[in-house]
Structure formats: C-alpha cells, structure tokens
C-alpha cells in the first residue's frame, strides 16, 4: 500500500523565536524540506510614508529612526541628504565628518547585531548574541554621550547634525576604535571564521547568484556576497566618503557564510573609516542655519546611502509647502527579502532559518 503524504503548512512567524521582528513566513513542508514559501509582511506597518505627508520636513526625521531602529543614524542621514538635495542646502564640513563617523559607528552596531543573531539562528545558545551585544553597547554609549539617545538617535538634522560632539567623545572613541573593537573583531574571527559547525550550517546555504542579485536589485552584503562589487559609498559618494580610503569586501559564493564574513570585514573597514574621519575632522559649525519649517522649492530629489542592510534610498517630492508632497523609502530590508523564496525552496527548515538570518532584515524598515 503506498503511503499517502502531503505537505504540511507551517507558520514561521509572526511569533517565532527566530523571525527577526514580526515577519511571517508560511512554509509548506514535505518532511523537513520546504516546497513552497509565502512571505507575509505588514505586521509592523505604521504608515510612515503617508504620515510624513502631514508633517514638516524636520518633523519627519524621527520616523527614519523608527524604520530601521538598529541603524537609526543611517536612516537619519539618508533622509536629511534627500531634503538637502531638494532644498540645495550646503552642509558644513565638520557636520559631514560627524555624519560619516556616526554612520560608520552605526554600521558596526548593526553588523554586530546581525552577526550575533545569525549565529543564534544557526542554533548557538545566545552566547554570540551576548558577545556582540557587549560590543554594540559600547557604540551605543557613544551615541548616548553625544545625543542622549541610544537606539532612536534622531541626531542628524537638515543642514548638519543636532549637537556637536562633547569633549569626552573623541578620547572615548579613540579607546573604542583603537584599543577595544579591533581585538573584539579578531575574537569574532577566531571564534566564527573556520568554525566547522558554522561552516556546515552556513556554507552553500541560501545561495544568491549574481544574476539573481541583480535581477532582484539586491544591495548591501547580500549583493556583495554574490560577488558583485558595489557599495554606494564608492559608487555614488555622499558626505566625505570620497576622501576616505577603504575596501569593499566581496564574496565568491553568495552563501550565508560569505555574508557573515563580509559583515565582520565591513566592521573592520568601518573602523578604518572612523580613524581617518577623526584624523581629518575639521573645526567649524556643526549645522547651518535652516528654518525649522523648511519649505524646499517644488521638485523632487532622490538620495541614497549605504545603510548596514544595503542601499537605503529616500525619494522626496515637494510642492513648495512645509510638508513633503510624497515621501518614498527604498528599504533594503524589503528588497533583499524578495529573493527569500528562491533561496529557501528546496532547503530544510533549519537552513531556511539560517538563510533568513543571513539576510539581516529589519521589520521596522520592511513594513515602515
């Protein structure tokens, strides 16, 4: 008698220990193997793009904190850049350097979180997360020192940054960047790179081919793991990135393991950028005088930054009023997630979790 079997539908999320946030993945599973995946997004939809049309340009900055709450600085920066482009505002040099320092610190914080959570998805019992959190906390301490907030920093302003750095900031940053973090990242490499179990779990899992990556317009570590050298900081430099020397790590295989390697390497490159930025940091004002209720001329502007997740773009349309006529966010979390089905179908559940973890989505940004 033939045994009758049919795929089972299993909900991975929105309440599941390893979905990042409230992302829901409806998987049809045949034994341990996934035959179909349906992605359900929108559980954290806060209608930010619509709300922004009712608020002034300056009032919209806090929204960008709450989109990718693990990388609030780059969110702030991307939005401010777009409004500055629209209104033609010149940003003082010091503010540009501060923006670079803080967005690179934010990259370290976000990649720490991504690496730890990824190893946790591989099944480690919270230890890597705690290690990575320990180092992320130190970065957040610097944020707190500067702007009083740790997570939703709301630090960038149209025309500069909200506050100049306090006196104790640069010594603390020097300790962190030169004494503390380099050894931590070496420790990560010793523990994670070449670890047989992580290799077994992450090698050849969640492979993104270059064609797939370009067709789905993936960005960030997802794109670079597929072997395509692309980084907005190099391709379309904003702030003072064109004055910095740094390398873009690019993988060969496009698998989850490569993405982990790339994140660890990018943290090291961020340290390099921060050192240069601190070295070159000029004196001067940290902000130009911009009216709070800024009224950019009618028109549109798109600006993009390399957020830790990928290319974060802000498209702002103004009709000459105090509020944007239309505000659209190109969220890398959403676009990077679009290949999830191609990546996971045919895998086991365990691999699908690892794949999802390696994409490094942030549901706040995904649903906005």
């Amino acid at each position, binding site marked *: 008698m033939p045994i009758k079997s049919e795929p089972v539908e299993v909900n991975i999320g929105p309440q599941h220990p390893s979905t990042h946030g409230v992302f829901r993945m409806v998987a049809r599973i045949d034994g341990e193997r996934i035959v179909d995946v349906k992605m359900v997004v929108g559980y954290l939809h806060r209608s930010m793009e619509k709300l922004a049309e009712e608020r002034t340009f300056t009032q919209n900055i806090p929204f960008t904190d709450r989109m990718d709450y693990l990388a609030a600085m780059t969110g702030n920066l991307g939005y401010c850049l777009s409004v500055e482009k629209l209104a033609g505002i010149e940003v003082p040099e010091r503010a540009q350097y501060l923006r670079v320092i803080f967005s690179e610190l934010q990259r370290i914080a976000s990649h720490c979180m991504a690496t730890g959570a990824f190893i946790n*998805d591989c099944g480690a019992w919270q230890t890597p997360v705690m290690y990575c959190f320990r180092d992320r906390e130190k970065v957040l301490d610097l944020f707190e020192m500067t702007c009083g907030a740790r997570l939703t920093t709301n630090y960038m302003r149209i025309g500069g940054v909200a506050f100049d750095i306090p006196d104790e900031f640069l010594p603390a940053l020097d300790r962190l960047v030169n004494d503390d973090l380099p050894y931590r990242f070496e420790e990560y490499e010793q523990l994670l790179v070449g*670890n047989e179990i992580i290799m077994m779990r992450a090698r050849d899992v969640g492979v993104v081919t270059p064609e797939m990556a370009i067709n789905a317009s993936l960005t960030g570590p997802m794109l670079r793991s597929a072997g395509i050298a692309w980084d907005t900081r190099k391709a379309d430099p904003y702030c003072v990135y064109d004055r910095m020397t740094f390398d873009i790590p690019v993988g060969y295989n496009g698998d989850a393991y490569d993405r982990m390697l790339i994140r660890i390497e990018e943290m090291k490159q961020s340290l390099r950028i921060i050192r240069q930025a601190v070295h070159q940091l000029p004196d001067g004002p940290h902000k130009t005088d911009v009216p709070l209720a800024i009224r950019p001329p009618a028109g549109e502007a798109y600006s993009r930054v390399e957020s830790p997740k990928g290319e974060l773009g802000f498209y702002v349309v103004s009709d000459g009023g105090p509020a944007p006529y239309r505000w659209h966010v190109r969220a890398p979390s959403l676009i990077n997630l679009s290949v999830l089905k191609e990546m996971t179908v045919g895998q086991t559940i365990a691999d699908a979790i690892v794949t999802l973890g390696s994409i490094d989505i942030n549901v706040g940004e995904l649903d906005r």
Partner: protein
Amino acid sequence: MIMALLTIITDNWWDIRDLSNLSHEIEKLIGDANGPAWLIYVVSGLLGAIGIVSFIGGVAVINIWVERRVVGRMQSRLGPNRLGPFGLLQPVADAIKLMQKEVLMPGTASGLIFTAAPIMFTVPGILLMAVLPWGRNMTLASLDVGVLFLLAASSLAALAVFMAGYSSDNKYALFGSMRVIAMLVSYEIPIVISLLGVVLFAGTMDLQGIVLFQEKYWAFMILLQPLAFFIYFISVSAELNRTPADIAEAESEIVGGYHTEYSGMKFGLFYAAELINAVVVSAIISTLFLGGWWAYKLDEIVPGWMIYIGKIYGVYFLFVWTRGTLPRFRIDQLLAFAWKWMTPMAILNLILVAAEVLVWDESGWSAGVMIPAFVVINGTLAIATVYAFMRLLAPKFERFPTALRFYSNIDVPSLPATADGAARAGTQTV
C-alpha cells in the same frame, strides 16, 4: 523505634564516609528486636530511596541556578543575581512562577498521553540513580546487569519526548518528536557499542564491579577507553537534547519542539527533568569513565559520595560548557555524523578492545605492563581518529574559496546625466 533510629544517626554522625554503615546498624537493631527479615529490606530501601529522590530534587533545583549562572558568566553577563545571595533563590522564584501559571492543554490533544509525558520524562532519571554506586557499599539496587539497565532506562526518556510531541497535536511538536525518534534510532547504537568496550575491559556489567576494576588496576576507564568516552559523550548529548544536538527542541527552528504546547508545572517538569537527566548522565560518565567514588588515594580521606558528586558536577560543567559554546547541527548532518563516523569508530574501538582483552587473557602478562600499553595504544587511536575526522571534514569546504576579495575602486556603469547637465560617469577613483 524512631527515637532509636535517631540515636543511631546522632551517635554515628561522624561516620559519613560510608553511609551503608547506617543500614548495618538498622539491620542490627531489627535483629536485636527480633523483627522480621523483610523489614530490613523495606527500611533500608526506603531510606535509600528517600536519599536518592531528595538528591534528584535538590539537583533539579540547584542546577537551574548552576546552569543559568555558569552560562551567564560564559556569555559575559552576570546571570541570576537578584534573589538571595548570588541569586541562589532564583530557582524558587522560577518554581513559584511556573506553579502560578495556568496549565493549558490544546483542545485536540490526547489528554492522558499529554499529561503522562512529563511524568514519563522524569522517571528514567530517578530509576537510573538507583543502580549507581555512591560508595564502596553504597548502592541502592546492586544489579549484575547494571549497564544493561542503564541503557534500557535511559532510552525511555526519548519515548516520553515522543509521547509529548505526538499528543500535543502541534506541528512544531510533531517535528520535534519525529526528530527525537530519528536521533534515538541513530544514537542508541554508538552509545551501546561504546559502552560495550568498557564492559569488555571490566569483564562485568555490574557498575560497582566497573568501579572496582578501575580501583584494582589504578586507572580511570577514560585512560583505557578515551575514544569510547568521546563517542559516548557526544552521543549522549544528542540524546539529552543539548547543544550542539538540541535539534528536537531547536528553539530557533521549531519553537520549543516537543514541549511547545506545555505550560505551567507540566513544562516545569520537562525543564527539571532535562537538568536531572543531564546530571544522571554525568553520573553515568563519572561511574564508567572517571572511577565513580574512587579517586586514587583521595577516597581514603574524603567520603566517596562527595568525590562522586564532585565528579558529577565536573562532567555536568562540560555539558554546560558545550551548550554555551557550540551552534547546532542540522538533523541530517547529525544523523550522518552518527552513522558515518560514530558507529564505525565505536565498532573499531570494540574490535580493538576485544583483541586487547584476548591478548591480556591469553598472554598472562602482568597488569603493570598491559594497562600502560593499552593506555598508550587506545590514546593514540583516539587522537588519530579525531584528527582523521577533522581532516575528513575539512575537504568538504575546500571547494569553496574562503577568502574575500577586496575592492578599493569599483566600476560604476554610466549613469544618465543629472539635472544640472553634468554626467556622473566613469570610474570613481577613491
């Protein structure tokens, strides 16, 4: 009678080296009072049972703290430190919280099995403790086939896990129980074969006999059987559902696995029984591989059962350590590991032990020559096989280029002209 018992205990309080003296005293007391012979068994059995059950209960409570505290320190955080000195009262708070919780059961669950599973899960640990020797004469139930009993009773826990997963009527739980059965089938074999090596060496299945063998030849079994220890430790951590093999309750994959639907004290029993089982397995390892209550000359000064508890916690620390360190295998990798490496190595180990025992018996050379020779031979074999395994594993990943490429300049495809007419094209040189 009770007063007389109390006087015996208070009179002999100093003689804690071997608590079996107590039962001799009771025997004497009952004999003096012309009591029936069966009363001796009943009283001493009850006393032993109370001792073991209270040890198990205490262990379950203390280990909640031990595990959380040790893992906390490993994770560069403090661990429980709020309640009582060093957070020692944390298990009490945990227990109170669990007892207050409503015990929920899914409407479609099969009630009897659902309720029986956590109890079933707790029982094997207590059963196993009964046959383990705590001191020279301290065994509650001295079985001639102790090792066989160990193997039989320890695999009962997997059945309870399957009951829990199957009766919950939950997909995650069903996945968990499927995985448990797959692991049971795979890992029982290396466990049995690796323990056979120990049994063959000791020439007895009696656990006390195995300890006495180690005492007689002045060598812990781990020295004679390092590979068996290695195989047993890994296999048993797969059976215990501890990382790197906690795939049956893989939190990041299938939520809680078999205990997804459990809440309140039913979940508490699972939680406690997991800690108990870990300690019981540590006790088995201490007995079979680390000499049990015997520790060279130390057991003449320190009571054997204290040495034994010390060894148990030493092995338990190893379990906590691996749990705090390693990521999880995928189930197919874990099963392949069992079938392709553990089982063949266990069989190889068994063949080698059989040959060694034969040579020992036939040649009639003295133990003083044979034991060091075996230590060297088996140690070399263990190191060689582990090394060979690492080498075997490595080429699997050699086809992947491991290093990353670094670009300091990137080619930017031509972009359309911007609004002010300037074309942003060409290579950006940085």
